[in-house]
Structure formats: structure tokens, C-alpha cells
């Protein structure tokens, strides 16, 4: 099972899995597989939220100004 690249991707995939599970034409074997995937996605999304740390960077506007543009 492939791990989502980002939280958004995880959430989006989770929604898709739910829709697929809600679709009655999905075979049972497939549903069970999807269920396992959903459990994995939920764990991933929760962990991502729980572990997230705010990252802060700085940009030198004056420098960017001088190198990027002539005003």
C-alpha cells in the first residue's frame, strides 16, 4: 500500500475510499482491501496532524528587491 505524499492527498484519498465503500457495486473483496487502506490513511493523517511542527523561514526582501527588480 503506497503512502500518501501529503496530508491533503491523504484526506482526498480517504474521501475516495469512503465513496468507493459506499458504492454497492464494489465487490466485497475490494471493499475489504479498501478498508485496510482507509485504516492506513487515517493513521497517516492523524499522525501528520499530531506531529506537525510549525516551520518558520525568513526572506530578505531588500535583497530580493535588488536582485529581482529595478524600482
Amino acid at each position, binding site marked *: 500500500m503506497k503512502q500518501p505524499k501529503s*496530508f491533503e492527498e491523504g*484526506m482526498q484519498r480517504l474521501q475516495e475510499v469512503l465513496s468507493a465503500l459506499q458504492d454497492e457495486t464494489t465487490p466485497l473483496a475490494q*471493499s475489504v482491501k479498501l478498508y485496510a487502506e*482507509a485504516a492506513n490513511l487515517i493513521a497517516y493523517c492523524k499522525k501528520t496532524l499530531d506531529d506537525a511542527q*510549525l516551520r*518558520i*523561514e525568513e526572506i530578505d526582501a531588500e535583497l*530580493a528587491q535588488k536582485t529581482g527588480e529595478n524600482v
Partner: protein
Amino acid sequence: MADFINVTTLNRLAKNVLAQCEPLSNIVVCGEISGFTRHYKSGHLYFNLKDEASSVKSVMFRGQTRLLNFEPQNGMQVLAYGHATIYERDGAFQLYVDYMRPFGAGAAQMAFDALYKKLEGEGLFAQERKRPLPSMPHCIGVVTSKTGAAWQDVQNVIGRRWPLVRLLLAPVTVQGLEAEQSIISGIRALDRDERPDVILVTRGGGSKEDLWIFNSERIARAAAACRKPVVSAVGHEIDTTILDYVADLRAPTPSAAAELCVPDRAEFLQKISVLQENIQNNIQNRMQICYNKFMMVGVRQSMLQVQQGLVRRRQALGQAIQNMEGAQSQKVSQAERSLQAAAALAHSLNPYAVLARGYAIASREGEVRAVEELNPGDRITLYGARAEADCTVRSVRKIMQGSGNP
């Protein structure tokens, strides 16, 4: 010795005298603008500053006008920063203005209203221009003072609500003469940078004068020119700046802006647990349905088997009944037949039937006797069909076998 000087010398003299006067070289003059013109070619500003009693010619060169963050207008009270001297060519006493800002509530409001009208006329405030914020930004560019409370507020709120995001700070000066250019550079730098997907321009609360810089036309235009959505949060709820009108979203405070920029982690955890519940219920239902279906099939199958068994047994029973009835009736008819035969035989053997044909039966002491059993002198009765006769045996003769009947 000449007793006159030429005009040029006079003017130079006056100028030199004035130059000795320290206060004139760096003054702030308060007055009302009148006779305002912007030279169509040079871009220099010419006007008079006046009060109730006097007026002074004033000029502001184009290079300096870049620093203006309002549109000077006739009737506007301003504070003009600069120096005063003689313009030698005309001998005119003039104020050379380096910087100007509206003075007093009336003037400030006038400047604000004028700029508002102008930018609104250009459609910069139009709702159609407003771009939606990304629902889950990866990086937020923040234009603010690195030492300000606003920056702390933004970090706190976002750290709590959505620490998944990255903050890219463009540290700027939000007060003083350099503030305008600094803020513009910050906005432009963040817009050019690949990383941020939304730009937040913010500063904490302050006096009306402190926040005035955010009414700058050039800042407004820099924000309007951004490719990325811009959120503004200047001062408190009640402070609305020109930047707020141009921004794609206006937040009342820095904290509120931070909240509006990111989703809420708690909300998402809630959302995830709802999803989880949904998925759980779903798979359980699914299993239940399958199990039920399986059970239904099983029940139907076993009912079918029972039914088939019943049919088979019913047939066997029917067959047995039929067989039994057949055997029964066969037996009965056989018995009937043998009875009839026996009856016929019995009938044919009835001795009394023979009597009808004239034969008689001899009986001694109530018992039928064969003639050879009789002895002479026996008293016998002869029974015929219609009469009987009491007789006495006189003699008994044996009849030779085969000698014929009497």
C-alpha cells in the same frame, strides 16, 4: 566704489543670509495646500501653503513625490518637511518639501477619501477581483515587523491551528519614512518567491497615524498586482485601511487573519474521526448484508431440500398406498373367487339337492349311515326331498364292485 549690486548678487546674498539661519534648513511647516499643480512634464509639485494670514510658495520635486502616500489636494491641511530658501532666479522665498503628510483628522480623511475614490474608480476594490484563499496553504508569506506583536500572534495562532504550514517572513519596517518602501518590497518579494501560496500583510494595533502608512497608494497597488491572494490585517477591527479594500480578504486583527488563512487541526481530527466512523459502519453493514444474503441462500437451499424430500416421500407413500390397495383388492377378489368356487362346490355337494332328484338318505339314531353300515333289524329313517319314511332293515346285501347298479 560701486553703490549698487546686481539682482543676482542680491538674491545670492539673501540666500546666503538665509542659509545661516539654522532653523530654516530643517523645518516642519503646517499649512493648507492651495494652487496645487503637478507639472505635466517634470512631475514636480508646485503649490502654496497658507494659513489665515500668510502663504508661502512651495515645491516638491518628483524624486521626493515617490515617498508620498496620499494625493495632495487643495484645501488639505498638511505637515510639510523640508527647508526654506530663496530661489535665486526669481528672488522668491520658497519652501522645498521633502516629505508631506496629511495633518489632522479632516485632512487625513480627505486624503483617504480621495485615494479611495480614485482606486475604486479603477476597479481595484471590485468583488470580482477577490481571489479565494487556498483551503490548505503549504506556505504563508507574512509581511510584518519581525519584532511586532502581530508576528507573535500569527505564529501562535497558526502553530496551534495548523502547524502543517510553513511561514515565510518578510521582515519589514512598519513605521517611519522607510516603511512604505519596505512593505512594498516585502509584498513583491513574497509574490515573486515560489514558496508562499498566500500573502499576509499585517501589523498590530496603533494610533491612526501609525497605521496611516497602510493607506498608501503604492502599497495598495503592490498588493493589487500580486499573483497570489493577499490578506490584510492592520490594527484592530475598527481600523480600515486602503490596503484592506484592495486585499482579497480583510481580517480585523493579525490573529483573526492567521485563523482565516489556515484550517483548524481540531476540526480536521474531528472530520477524520467522522470519516473513520463512516468507513467502519460501512464495512460492517457491508459484511452484515453479505452474511444475510449468504444466510438467505442457505435457508432457501435447505428449504428446497426439505421440500424435495417431502415430494419424494409423498410419492413413495402414494406408491405404497397404491401397492397396498392393489394387493388388498387382489387378495379380496381371489378370496371371493375361491369362495364362489367353494360355494359352487358346496352347492353341488349338497346332499339335499340330490334328494330332489329322488334319492334318499338313510339315518339311524339321527345319524346318516352308509347302507353297508346297516344291519338287519336296524330301525332307520329314510329322508327324501319332500317326505320321510321310518323303515326296518330286513337284510343287508353287499353289492359286488362293478356288478352294476340295482
